[in-house]
């Protein structure tokens, strides 16, 4: 019994430390963003708990055009993109889950192969360029509409709906269209909400495609603006995006940067409790996306 007690104490302590190690960086970001600029300068950035809280950095960040514009872009991606992604992916996945569909097997192979082999960055870039989508926000949505993983995850969801439901509906005189809209869709709403949340987080975090396809700063999504605020200005003394944000007032760069991080993270924190509800599906997502 003694060994067991000791085990529990060590285990709880270690896990508490792991939790703290995860939380501390986030806590520190939060604290710095709310620290009064003069206090931050006086303490030379060594702030673990501010004596004076201040929302000056937030006021400033939220008054800059570039930040608001980038937030708008990302919000656009996360709403329109998510809706389109769900429609395209779910309808394809539903079709693939119907065994009587003749072209089901070749279609599944077609989707599967895209998960194993990608032609690489440049051919995708050339395609987007030839479609005249460079510097167009649709370049951040259309190429990312769907993926093999999501198709197969949703297909396995549709597979799990008992066929008896469909048969009963057919007896009641429903046709294909009726079954899909009256039976399947209402039944799938919670799952679609879950997939939608994961899509929305993905669109909100869009970065790589924007690096490739968007050069025009007025069309930057939030992550690209953030990168310019956060990184370019810490390796070189004055980055382009950061200069605009920081030089007009004498606010310390760090509090502004962290306020920008907090604002950009807030939407994720808001949907996080809902995401958490759907972790069972996330299991598969997390494991295969590696």
């Amino acid at each position, binding site marked *: 019994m003694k*060994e*067991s007690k000791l085990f529990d104490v060590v*285990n709880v302590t270690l*896990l508490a430390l792991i*939790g703290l*190690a*995860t*939380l501390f*960086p*986030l806590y*520190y970001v939060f604290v*710095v963003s709310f620290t009064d600029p003069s206090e931050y300068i006086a303490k*030379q950035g060594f702030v673990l708990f501010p004596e004076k809280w201040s929302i000056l950095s937030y006021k400033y960040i939220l008054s800059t055009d570039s930040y608001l514009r980038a937030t708008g872009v990302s919000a656009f991606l996360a709403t329109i993109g998510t809706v389109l992604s769900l429609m*395209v*992916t779910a*309808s*394809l996945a539903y*079709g693939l889950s*119907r065994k009587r*569909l*003749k072209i089901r097997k070749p*279609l599944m192979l*077609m989707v*599967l192969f*895209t998960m194993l*082999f990608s*032609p*690489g*960055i*440049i*051919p*995708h870039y*050339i*395609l987007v360029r030839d479609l005249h989508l460079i510097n167009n926000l649709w370049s951040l949505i*259309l190429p990312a509409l*769907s993926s093999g993983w999501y198709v197969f995850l949703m297909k396995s969801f549709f597979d799990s709906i008992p066929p008896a439901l469909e048969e009963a509906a057919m007896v009641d005189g429903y*046709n*294909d269209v009726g079954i899909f809209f009256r039976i399947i869709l209402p039944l799938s709403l919670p799952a679609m909400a879950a997939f939608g949340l994961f899509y929305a987080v993905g669109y*909100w975090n869009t*970065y790589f495609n924007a*690096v*490739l396809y968007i050069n025009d700063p007025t069309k930057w999504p939030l*992550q*690209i603006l*953030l*990168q310019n605020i*956060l*990184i370019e200005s*810490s390796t070189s003394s004055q980055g382009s995006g950061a200069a605009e944000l920081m030089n007009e007032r004498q606010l310390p760069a760090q509090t502004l*940067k962290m306020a920008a*991080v907090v604002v*950009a*993270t807030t939407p994720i924190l808001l949907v*996080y409790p809902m995401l*958490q509800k759907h*972790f069972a599906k*996330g*299991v598969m997502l*997390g*494991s295969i996306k590696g």
Partner: protein
Amino acid sequence: MKVVTGIRKDLFLYALILPGFLYFLLFKYVPMWGIVISFQEYSPYLGFWQSPWVGFEHFATLFNNPDFLIIFRNTMVISMMNIVFYFPMPILVALMLNELRLKRFQRVIQSVIYLPHFLSWVIISGITFLLLSQSGGIVNKLLVEFGREPYNFLTNPGIFWQLLTAQSIWKETGWGTIIFLAAMAGIDPQLHEAARIDGAGRIRQIWHVTLPGIRNVIVTLLILRLGNIMDVGFEQVFLMMNSAVTDVADVFETYVYRNGIQQGQFSYSTAVGLFKSVIGLLMVIGANKLAKRYGEEGLY
């Protein structure tokens, strides 16, 4: 005729799959055709049809380029460090979580450690800079406070790989526990009961009951991870890269991005990307065979 009536009967289904089919055709298969330019001297003015063919010249250039060994090494080292140091972490933490008796505490810890998975790499790199920068980072502030010299974390080729590994551990360990916890939940409680009656303590139960119970999942995930060894997260490396660490940071994607998108050498960088994809495909197929030989399900 038969095909036509088949389509008419299932018209609705065909209508449903049409947008998805077009998406995969246009955005996944049309670019595959773009691979031809890696055997051409592609010029945007001449296009796919008129650009001159050069055979395997770009591949020869790649293999003779000293950069090739560097990006290959960096890719392998970053991936291997990820497998050696990150991969066991979620297993360890899942074992610890699984042993917790205070369910409320367990839920709190889980909520906390899953969170970083949803943060973008831009945010993670920003936090890394905030913590570790030489002038203003709090870690260096603490070092100075204790009378040490400030340490160069961010532009130091000597620890760049470790830095990436540490970021991955912080971001993904919690999320990675989910699949192991699910596997542990599937272990028959009677096995634990029997081991307890035989006098096994907690650690021996973990070793002899829990770990063997999730062995399949561990093996499958490890093999799949090995199959993806050519994939190093572009965003993470790209964001943490700076001129001081290029030699240890450059991987296939960053190299392709720089030579292709930034310098316009479309044909050469397509060849580099194709080389990476082909090796990656072979690795995945090999890994899948291996998984099946061990009686696991594999990926497909």
